[in-house]
């Protein structure tokens, strides 16, 4: 079975500081993809960053980067220079190539960026 676990229900960070959100996953597949999504309050879910499992290099998108540890099945998200607009629910998700592309989500981490 494919599972995704986020063990931090809530986190907070001061503006301009760095924060890391944790995620672990479990899959029996060798070909899969990992994602972080952001859901601001009452707004649309949007993609933050994605990682292909076969790539060893950690993905980076501007202030967002991941630490992908394949052997440990860990996929954490680092947000640098946090901004007030980063306040949102963050969801880690995985998608097995051989299961029709179903995206399985973790429980979410509510991030608050404080001024």
């Amino acid at each position, binding site marked *: 079975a494919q599972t995704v676990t986020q063990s931090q229900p809530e986190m907070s960070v001061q503006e301009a500081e760095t924060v890391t959100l944790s995620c672990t996953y479990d899959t029996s597949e060798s070909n899969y*993809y990992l*994602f972080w*999504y952001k*859901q601001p309050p009452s*707004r*649309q*879910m*949007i*993609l933050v960053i*994605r990682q*292909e499992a076969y790539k060893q290099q950690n993905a980076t998108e501007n202030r967002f980067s991941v630490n992908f540890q394949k052997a440990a099945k860990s996929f954490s998200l680092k947000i640098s220079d946090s901004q007030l607009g980063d306040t949102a*629910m963050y*969801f880690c998700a995985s*998608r097995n*190539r051989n299961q*029709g*592309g*179903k*995206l*399985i*989500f973790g*429980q*979410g981490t*509510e991030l608050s960026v404080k001024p």
Partner: protein
Amino acid sequence: EADIYQTPRYLVIGTGKKITLECSQTMGHDKMYWYQQDPGMELHLIHYSYGVNSTEKGDLSSESTVSRIRTEHFPLTLESARPSHTSQYLCASSVQDNSPLHFGNGTRLTVT
């Protein structure tokens, strides 16, 4: 601006009513999905489709049904709404298995 549209945005109805939540996308994506998001914010896949005339049940059992008669349209229907159906419903689509999902704004359903 969203390329995937959900209507209505909010819906409050009484128990026993039949409702249809609409989802349309303009990107020509074959794969479409319905997720139910509970008050604790967890997302559960309830239906998905790989293309026209293809529908499958997701990981969370749901009393709702879906249809996929056209590529761009993936409506979800509840024949008889109950208070336990109160939730937010998110529609999504993608072009390939390794592509990210594009989400609509969601429909927040309240059944009284």
